[in-house]
């Protein structure tokens, strides 16, 4: 908007106010009606869907399913899209770039869209952006609601060539809810972690696998995977052997 358009807007708005009505009580009563309705819904939800007491925190067990509140699903689902499997989907896009760029764009939006037009039907670019953003957020939230809660029966993952270490590794894999974030042969969640069906093809070696389990970020900088520091040496070896053999020894 240039100076003349700004002046014109201010004059027009002053005219609207002259022809208007007082804030109290005309706006106040509408505000209170809607606010009371919203508070009523909150109370009704609290009564119908009672809060529950979950399981106490146990940092040692790790049989958890990390799921955020529903209003973070759209960010959580981004992690499943950007898993670093190829150049187009680097992990940093989902963890940092996309959310932060969106946040900055949101804050500075009025300085980007400065046109004088206020009617949405005459602002095609703004309308298109709004429709795309709303559709994407709705879709990602819906995907988050639908995504499996993670618990997978070890028997559901059918692997051939399992030896003793492989069998023990698979049991650990299932007991520690790895399938809440990872997938093997189509079983488990499609993210945030990568698909492990062909883990052996990455040629990382047993030592890498064990270090990664103890402290993921030490081997994969920027990893959001929680650390598993409380296994025994035997368990590390079994799970590491199992992971290192996926797609090669165990198919």
């Amino acid at each position: 908007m240039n100076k003349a358009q700004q002046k014109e807007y201010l004059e027009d708005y002053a005219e609207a106010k002259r022809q208007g009505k007082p804030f109290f009580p005309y706006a106040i009563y509408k505000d209170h009606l809607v606010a009371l309705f919203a508070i009523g819904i909150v109370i009704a939800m609290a009564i119908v869907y009672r809060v529950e007491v979950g399981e106490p925190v146990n940092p040692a067990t790790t049989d958890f399913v990390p799921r955020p509140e529903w209003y973070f699903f759209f960010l959580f689902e981004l992690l499943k899209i950007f898993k670093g499997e190829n150049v187009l989907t680097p992990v940093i896009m989902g963890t940092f770039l996309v959310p932060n760029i969106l946040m900055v764009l949101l804050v500075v939006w009025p300085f980007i869209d400065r046109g004088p037009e206020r009617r949405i039907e005459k602002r095609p670019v703004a309308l298109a952006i709004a429709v795309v953003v709303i559709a994407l957020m709705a879709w990602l939230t819906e995907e988050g609601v639908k995504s499996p809660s993670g618990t997978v029966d070890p028997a559901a993952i059918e692997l051939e060539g399992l030896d003793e270490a492989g069998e023990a590794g698979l049991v650990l894999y299932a007991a520690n809810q790895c399938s809440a974030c990872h997938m093997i042969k189509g079983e488990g969640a499609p993210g945030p972690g990568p698909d492990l069906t062909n883990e052996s093809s990455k040629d990382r070696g047993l030592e890498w696998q064990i270090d990664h389990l103890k402290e993921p970020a030490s081997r994969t900088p920027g990893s959001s995977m929680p650390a598993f520091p409380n296994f025994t040496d035997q368990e590390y070896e079994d799970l590491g052997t199992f992971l290192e053999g996926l797609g090669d020894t165990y198919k």
Partner: protein
Amino acid sequence: MATKDIGPKNPVAKTNDMVVDYVDHRTGMKTGLNWFMNRNIPAETSWFQTLGFTAMALFGLQAITGIILAMYYKPDAATAFESIRVITDDLTWGWLVRGMHKWGASAMIVVVFLHMGRVFFFGAYKYPRELTWVTGSLLLVMTMFMGLTGYLLIWDQKAYWATVVAVNLTASAPVLGPYLADVLRAGPEFGPNTLSRFYAIHMLLIPGGMITFIAIHLFLVSKLGIAEPPWSKRRTMVEREKEEAKRQAARDRLPTGRTRVPVRAPEHPPLRTPAPTSSSTATTPEGGGS
């Protein structure tokens, strides 16, 4: 401000007047309230323009239920979970207050996003209300952070591990990420101090920030006035008049057509000719005669 026109003058009314005058003289309260309450708003406003107030009312509800919960919640890794259990199972109405705080958080997120959508579709963030939008969008981000930090305080498995992932994500950010994660965790490891830290952030830091920004937001809304819906009856009329004026101007600018081209005086004086009949044609260039 003595009341002369209603009722007999009794000492109570006199005292009330004195108190009001005393306060107003020192604070300008009357002027302030008058400015806030009696300002005019456009005649036509949409029901969607009540969402901002609704978000603020839900913030108030979160504050009240939050204060009640804080009276019983123990922000310590060893006792937090048990205190949540007591609030939910043993305390009279405890389940209701906790439930309202939980559902209130979801409701507030929904209403804040709807409010943002309303402002976007009305083009209400445009001049002169750009900074109102900036403070509002920061309030939206702070509301999201309230949800994130409050989630951990329940201190159950689901909350704990979801927050571990969220902090790991923070740590993965370039440059500042690792430091920020250390600040959130209160150290390099996720532990008991993390709970106290999230409690302080959830109870003091973000609410303080939100109250400040709500105050600025509200001041700007009152000062600049609430936006008129772009398709209100008055705006439609104004636009139609403008459109009509433009069309009229375009018609007036036409060199030919319905408007008459003014008659020009001849550049040279008519030649002196002896024949009187030809002089009439020379003075009228339009030649309407033949």
